[in-house]
């Protein structure tokens, strides 16, 4: 097995020779060739754009109540008005503005949640994979314990104990998601350590630090970025679920989950209250799933070659 791995592959040789700019251009070409990847990137950029520029593009203050205009349907209904394109909620707040601001909550939770989970997971996974032995056994048994529990149940119970706040939600997702990153990191570290190029680096006299930073870490980046995309999508999903149960950010914060929870009470009479936040979650989740599928193909050279 080692000998087969040691034969240099044509495309990986080229990758080493390329400058950063060439590589970005290469990734760009790969992206362009995969239409669903392009669609995913564009869809995701709209969400990022909405979150970053919310105060500029939202037509109203998402918290501004106006009971006179409450429960207005979207503009294309007879009773609707173009002043509130997507209609208003039960307190007369503009739904378009709330959906736009909701992107901030979702992306904040997703981004920081993944940041915490991937950092902790990288450390625990790398330590377990590199040191092995008893440390590995202890870390992995905790990881397997948490991963074998029903995730939604765990998150719901912790959220119920801790109470509603943005920081709590981020911490809950960040910590409960750490085991997945740890498991993937450990698996990759074990695989890379046994690979031919690490073996030859060791026999060429490379030290531990050099092996970790020159050979192991660069090879971890691909799988972890892919995992991060899928996990961020999952966190956005679960945050909305928690919000729906009234366990996420405080009710005053315009988040998609909170909007769904509020809209649920008016489901039959004012269905648009829950339609928009639901579509927003679906849009974001779809974009990240497309993006993740594409990243998985592009960042893993073995899969890249298999594609036409």
């Amino acid at each position, binding site marked *: 097995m080692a000998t087969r791995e040691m034969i240099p592959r044509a495309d990986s040789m080229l990758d080493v020779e390329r400058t950063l700019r060439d590589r970005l251009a290469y990734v760009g070409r790969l992206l362009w060739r995969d239409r669903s990847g392009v669609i995913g990137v564009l869809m995701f950029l709209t969400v990022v754009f909405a979150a970053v520029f919310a105060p500029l593009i939202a037509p109203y203050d998402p918290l501004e109540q106006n009971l006179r205009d409450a429960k207005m349907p979207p503009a294309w209904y007879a009773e609707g008005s173009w002043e509130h394109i997507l209609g208003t909620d039960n307190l007369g707040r503009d739904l378009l503005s709330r959906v736009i601001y909701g992107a901030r909550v979702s992306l904040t939770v997703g981004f920081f949640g993944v940041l915490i989970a991937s950092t902790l997971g990288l450390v625990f996974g790398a330590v377990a994979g590199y040191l092995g032995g008893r440390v590995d056994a202890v870390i992995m*048994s*905790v990881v*397997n*314990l948490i991963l*074998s*529990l*029903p*995730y*939604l*149940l*765990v998150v*719901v*119970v*912790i959220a*119920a*104990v*801790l*109470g509603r706040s943005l920081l709590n939600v981020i911490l809950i997702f960040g910590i409960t998601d750490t085991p997945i990153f740890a498991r993937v990191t450990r698996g990759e570290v074990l695989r890379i350590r046994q690979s031919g190029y690490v073996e030859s680096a060791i026999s060429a006299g490379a030290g531990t630090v050099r092996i970790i930073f020159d050979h192991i870490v660069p090879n971890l980046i691909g799988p972890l970025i892919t995992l991060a995309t899928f996990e961020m999508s999952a966190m956005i*999903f679960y945050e*909305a*679920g928690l919000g*729906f*149960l009234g*366990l996420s950010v405080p009710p005053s914060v315009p988040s998609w989950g909170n909007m*769904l929870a509020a*809209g*649920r009470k008016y*489901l*039959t009479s004012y*269905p648009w209250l*829950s*339609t928009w*936040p*639901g579509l927003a*979650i*679906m849009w974001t*989740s*779809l974009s990240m*799933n*497309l993006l993740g599928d594409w990243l998985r193909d592009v960042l893993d050279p073995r899969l890249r070659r298999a594609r036409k």
Partner: protein
Amino acid sequence: MQRYFLSKVGQSILLLLGVLVLVFFLLRLTGDPASLMMSREATPEQIAAFREAMGFNRPLIVQFWDFATKAIVGDFGDSLHYRTPALPLVLERLPATVQLAGTALLIAVIIGIPIGLVGGFNPGSLIDSVGRLVALLGQSIPNFWLALILILVFAVGLGWLPSFGRDAPTSVILPAFVLGLPTLGQLVRLTRSAVLEIRGEDFIRTAHSKGLQPRVIYAKHVLRNVAIPLISVIGIQFGYMLGGSIIIESIFAWPGIGQLLEQAIGWRDFPLVLAIAVFTSLAVLFINLLTDAAYAVVDPRIRYGH
């Protein structure tokens, strides 16, 4: 085989201990379980009396020993809301949750696997494209939102199916479909890629060149190998459905464990919450154990410890 199974049982017992430790310390995350469980209007005297009654003022290690030894025999204390032992309240709700999760799994399996098989044998065909789209949507649509939409269409609009409760035999259809959809999508993708992968294996080429009937090759060589990854996913997903139906149950007012959990959280009835958490985790661990056993039956490599 026996050794493999015994080691799995041993691991499950360790996991059970782990669950008890996690749950015990979870309640103490905020520092004071007494004020967590009492209503926000409770006076300091009431909280102190409650703390005394629940034994929260004893040393932690004593409390844990007390909690763990009782929990092992199924005693999680009394529900604060119902004032009766917590575990029977959970068990009472079990049949409804199992019925919901079982139906959801059945829907996912009988729709998802055939679509995945057709897609894997005919990549690029119409059924394959539609199946992959359904799979992608199934994993991207928030199921609680889909639940609301389906209620609007099938219960409110068309009036075909009940929108809540568990009174009619058709009541289970909408919640089970919503709960099963993400698994359905996953099964489509997994079956499809497993078929594609196994079709390219050397032993399939050998079978073809031996002149075996394609039907025999598909049934004996391909399907058996496809079954291996599917079994573990089906087992894991069933566990997730048992523990993850809280949102769906609360939307459809399905009287199962998930709905009880939502209510218990609302009542700050933490003994009941703990009983649900431990019981459901145990059920999931048990299903994982069964999955491992099924795995070993299907895949001889695992049985003989390779």
